[in-house]
């Protein structure tokens, strides 16, 4: 029976090694944050700005003494490893009591998977980027917050803007990535267009898989469909590839194109785009927006970011920066509530409830259902003498309350009731200066 003894010895040895080394003190020397974003694969083109911003903001916070004297220790998790690995990492991080906050995740798919896990593990989780409105549609969460807007305001805004610049649109085509975010966007954009202009017709609807390397056949398909407008919420390297392949084939001059997440690629492939392509930031995170320009903190962030990473922060960077700053505000509130005693995870959740805070680019307000209210900024590509790439012109900033259905209202039913007369009351393109 030698091997049983060996087994037992090995088990004991591992047990001892694995015993948590630190005892809980009242105020920890460091507090752990799990930060989930894509750092590999095609989605990393979008995920890395998020990660860069996290690095920068956490450094800034730590340099200023941390949160109530406690430094943040981030653990970055690559969403590129797939949902199973992401969930496993989340569970592993949550098992360590020193990790108090999860900033997760980029992909809507991962958010949908992580939210119930966060709830089970009673882990305060701030969704920094996921947009799918399904997140809070059926499930009520106590531990999950979205410091970001959802697909509903984002793509209702696209429809509103489109109709203000091109009211005669009849034929629309859609090319979106094939998962919740892309599917939701298609449904919402179509529903909004049908409500606001009942005679529009969807002439092609394509859902290439997330991470497709080539779009050539799709581009031909879009051209043959002869749409007035092409809507797309492709993002990351997918969007770059699409622009790279579609621009020489004149897709952007033949139809009006809406790239709902277009701002994130302007610096990389924007020169391929003609003027007048509608680009959005899904949210308000545009570094050249009037609000950003007014805020000295934002200007400093932009400058430091550009120096460090050799490009201007695109909107995913602001989503991340705004979220981490919001978490810092939550800690401030929690510390006030506990009268200086270091807050527990549950204290944080209580403090985060109905949070309302200024951000680098505007405001975030958490509603009763923990969903975030964020304004929507949208515009069109325009050349600018100050930059070697196009920037956003003819901008509009739609107030969150204007484009977001109220708590507890079914979003698609709300969209269906949108009245074409609302268009007249909206701020006009170019009104945000």
């Amino acid at each position, binding site marked *: 029976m030698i091997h049983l003894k060996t087994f037992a010895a090995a088990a004991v040895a591992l047990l001892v090694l694995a015993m948590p080394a630190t005892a809980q003190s009242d105020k920890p020397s460091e507090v752990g944050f799990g930060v989930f974003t894509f750092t590999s694969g095609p989605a990393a083109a979008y995920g890395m700005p998020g990660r860069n911003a996290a690095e920068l903001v956490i450094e800034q916070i730590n340099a200023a003494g941390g949160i109530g004297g406690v430094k943040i220790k981030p653990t970055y998790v690559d969403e590129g490893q797939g949902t199973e690995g992401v969930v496993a990492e989340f569970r592993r991080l949550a098992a360590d009591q020193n990790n108090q906050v999860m900033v997760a995740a980029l992909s809507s798919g991962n958010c949908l998977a992580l939210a119930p896990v966060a709830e089970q593990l009673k882990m305060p989780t701030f969704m920094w980027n996921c947009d799918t409105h399904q997140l809070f549609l059926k499930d009520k969460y106590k531990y999950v917050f979205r410091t970001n807007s959802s697909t509903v305001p984002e793509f209702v805004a696209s429809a509103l803007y489109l109709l203000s610049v091109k009211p005669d649109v009849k034929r629309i085509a859609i090319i979106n990535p094939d998962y919740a975010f892309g599917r939701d966007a298609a449904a919402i954009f179509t529903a909004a267009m049908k409500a606001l202009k009942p005679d529009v017709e969807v002439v092609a609807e394509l859902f290439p898989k997330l991470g497709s390397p080539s779009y050539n056949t799709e581009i031909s398909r879009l051209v*043959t469909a002869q749409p007035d407008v092409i809507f797309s919420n492709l993002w*990351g390297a997918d969007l770059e590839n699409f622009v790279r392949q579609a621009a020489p084939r004149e897709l952007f001059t033949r139809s009006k194109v809406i790239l709902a997440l277009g701002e994130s690629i302007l610096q990389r492939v924007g020169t391929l785009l003609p003027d007048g392509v509608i680009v959005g930031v899904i949210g308000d995170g545009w570094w050249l927006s009037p609000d950003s320009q007014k805020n000295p903190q934002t200007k400093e962030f932009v400058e430091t970011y550009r120096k460090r990473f050799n490009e201007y922060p695109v909107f995913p960077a602001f989503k991340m920066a705004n979220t981490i700053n919001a978490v810092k505000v939550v800690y401030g509130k929690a510390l006030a509530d506990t009268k200086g005693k270091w807050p527990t995870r549950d204290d944080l959740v209580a403090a985060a409830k109905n949070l309302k805070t200024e951000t680098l680019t505007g405001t975030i307000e958490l509603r009763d259902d923990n969903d975030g209210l964020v304004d929507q900024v949208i515009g069109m590509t325009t050349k600018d003498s100050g930059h070697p790439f196009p920037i956003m012109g003819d901008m509009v900033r739609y107030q969150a309350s204007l484009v977001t259905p109220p708590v507890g209202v079914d979003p698609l039913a709300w969209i269906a009731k949108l009245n074409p007369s609302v268009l007249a009351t909206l701020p006009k393109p170019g009104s945000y200066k």
Partner: protein
Amino acid sequence: MFANYAPLIVDGLADAALIFFVAVGLTLVFSVLHILNVAHGSFYSLGAYLSVVIGTFVAGRGWPALSFLALLISPIIVTLALGPLIERTLLRWTYGRSEALQILVTFGLFLILEDAQKLIFGVQSYSQDAPMTLLGTTQIAGIVYLNYQLLLIALAVLVAIGLRLLLKHTGVGKLIIAVVADQEIARAVGIDASRVFMLAFSLGVFLAALGGALASPTVGVSPGLGAETIVLAFAVAAIGGLGQIEGAALAAILVGLTRSAAIYFFPEFQPVVPYIVMLAVLLVRPYGLFGSIGLRRI
């Protein structure tokens, strides 16, 4: 009539051209070494990465035209660096052993090569567009095509014909054919089969890397490309009949056209197309369109 289907055919053929390069390499290696190389897709992505790196480097120095040269040079570099090395060290240990084992060895190689790429090229997406923009565009039936896409079709035809000529009319080709026909007899008449193995494997590596290099101007290159490519190449090689060059060509056209047709008519099912075609073909002809299998001698 033609106007309606022209885009479908052009896109389908351009797609088929890219598929053909990888599938024909896979099938060639199988016909000579009888190994199904799971790592074949990694050579494709290596070729793609390298040509983007070299291409953007020379384009960045102000010689965008040189990036065409990169498309040819990078597969040669990949081949010289890896072809003989892998054949000599890993593969030759597996000759004559079970198929399960051979597949596993190449799977191990696949895992290593995938991570090697991550370590060398990082995890972000790469792309180049100089070759594409330089060649300009052509209108066919009202649709703008990249001349580069048309060039791909032409190149695939050239490679298919070239391979045939190589096998039929050159000394190396004849050696390969002799080894494919009967290894024992080939050895008996003094053919150095192990050299032929190395040459054939390197040729397979070259074709895969060439496919990747040629694809790089029209696709984004990022981790996972190799894994995607190899399954597609498997399907095409199996449809054509493992070891059949003409079979691979026909299968690539079949898959390319059906795929683009699917985008037009059933976009939801476009990604399933290669496998459905494969299952359908193998149900009727278990060893592929051009394949056959003999009885075991007892």
